[in-house]
């Protein structure tokens, strides 16, 4: 039930560069955090202006983003320059420090969440910043700070549309946080530990061998019901169709984002994508075996990236096909449907594990 934790990224840096003492560890930790943060932001930068448009175009029979650069990739710096060059309009009557802090909290909370995720190895480097024993609970705690940001933005904007968006965000997050965590707890019962690397490690055993291919014991295969529940609750957490209610462009203009422009808007926009990737990362670690995949362990990072991009693709696919539910229907589904199902799943898992083990 759990393997020896692999060497963490900061420790690797300390070893490789021979950085001495506590100061060396601090410096190594900062460098490692910067690298991981940049990787995540790079994914976000590719996903926002480029991948999202390409994917949406594929679903809608169009050609998109093919003018500048190879495959249109130069749109990423172009979009960055365009968004940052806009004027930052500060509306009259906004609650000043709150309004400014809100867009910073959204991406920051998601990036914080990435600090404990075991993202796999690439060569000698193991992309994990920290591996506390309660890592699993920590990552959910960080992810849920996002709702604070949405409420701050909604309330401080002095705009009725933003207020409605902020209120909806709170209602939605409350309704779905509990099923999300309860479903995740059922995984912990299987793994027996809250440590992230332990959960990943517990999924490396072989479940069954079909036609010579070893199917690993990913919890998605072991408990597909919990997998579906978790994916649904995750979509509600990150605010994607069919649960993109806080933003709801055709109803409340832009919800909590209405009064933001230029740099703050970029922070919200990209922050949303970082959250989607964080959701995908949590999903990968919890149900899809983290960085494991066919091939040697030293390219595990590639598989991890594939998995989180797969989740992103799934959200885009859902966005193009599925309508949005209404807020009262959403809360009904959350409190009446998902909560009951997730608790049932938890109890069932506990009973089965208790009986078998």
């Amino acid at each position, binding site marked *: 039930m759990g393997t020896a934790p692999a060497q963490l990224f900061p420790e690797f840096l300390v070893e490789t560069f021979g950085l001495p003492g506590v100061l060396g560890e601090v410096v190594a930790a900062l460098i490692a955090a910067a690298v991981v943060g940049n990787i995540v932001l790079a994914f976000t930068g590719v996903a926002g202006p480029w991948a999202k448009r390409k*994917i949406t175009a594929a*679903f809608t*029979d*169009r*050609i998109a983003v093919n003018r500048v650069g190879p495959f249109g990739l130069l749109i990423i710096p172009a979009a960055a320059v365009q968004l940052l060059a806009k004027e930052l309009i500060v509306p009259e009557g906004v609650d000043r420090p709150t309004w400014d802090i809100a867009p910073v909290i959204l991406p920051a909370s998601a990036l914080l969440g990435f600090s404990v995720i075991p993202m796999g190895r690439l060569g000698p480097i193991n992309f994990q910043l920290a591996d506390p024993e309660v890592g699993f609970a920590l990552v959910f705690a960080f992810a849920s700070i996002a709702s604070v940001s949405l409420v701050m933005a909604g309330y401080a904007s002095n705009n009725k549309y933003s207020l409605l968006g902020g209120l909806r965000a709170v209602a939605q997050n409350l309704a779905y946080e509990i099923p999300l965590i309860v479903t995740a707890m059922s995984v912990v019962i299987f793994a027996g530990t809250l440590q992230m690397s332990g959960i990943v490690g517990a999924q490396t055993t072989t479940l069954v061998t079909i036609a010579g291919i070893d199917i690993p014991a990913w919890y998605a295969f072991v408990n597909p019901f919990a997998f579906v529940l978790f994916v649904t609750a995750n979509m509600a957490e990150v605010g994607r169709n069919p649960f993109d209610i806080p933003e709801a462009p055709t109803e409340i203009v832009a919800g909590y984002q209405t009064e933001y422009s230029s740099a703050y808007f970029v922070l919200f926009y990209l922050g949303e994508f970082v959250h989607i990737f964080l959701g995908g990362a949590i999903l990968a670690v919890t149900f899809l075996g983290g960085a494991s995949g066919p091939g040697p362990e030293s390219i595990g990072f590639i598989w991890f990236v594939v998995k989180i991009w797969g989740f992103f693709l799934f959200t885009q*696919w*859902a966005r193009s096909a*599925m309508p949005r539910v209404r807020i009262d229907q959403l809360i009904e589904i959350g409190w009446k449907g998902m909560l009951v199902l997730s608790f049932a799943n938890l109890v069932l898992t506990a009973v089965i594990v208790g009986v078998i083990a």
Partner: protein
Amino acid sequence: MIGLMKSMATTMKHALDGKTFTVEYPEDAPEVSPRFRGVHKFSQERCIWCRQCENVCPNDTIQIVQDDQRNGEQYNLHIGQCIYCRLCEEVCPVDAILLTQNFEFTADTKDDFVFNKEQLKNVPWYKGIDPLESRNPDRSAWIGEGDGEIDYQ
């Protein structure tokens, strides 16, 4: 749930079959029908200054100025104000004003869109198509063969 699955399957099918509806303008010039109503072309040689076009225009877009001998001096048409209804072409007895298929016209200010006689004469055909020819393919069947281009008199 089945309905949701069907919706998702439909969009994925569209994504994977790779067919796109986009016309990559300006590299691929779009096909317009022969009857398409674009910018006007005026021929002073054919015009008999009957002023029917000015009379019928719903928008007062055409302005004709004549001197006391009723010779035509100016023929001004504001192609920004025009609603491209083609009534002027319809009432013209001599095909002096035509709507070509050309939709590619730009200007820096709205006032630059007031075309006078010279500018209207120099409006290019779209892809070189004379609209009267394309609408009635046998219109010039009676023109004998000869050398040189047919001048749009």
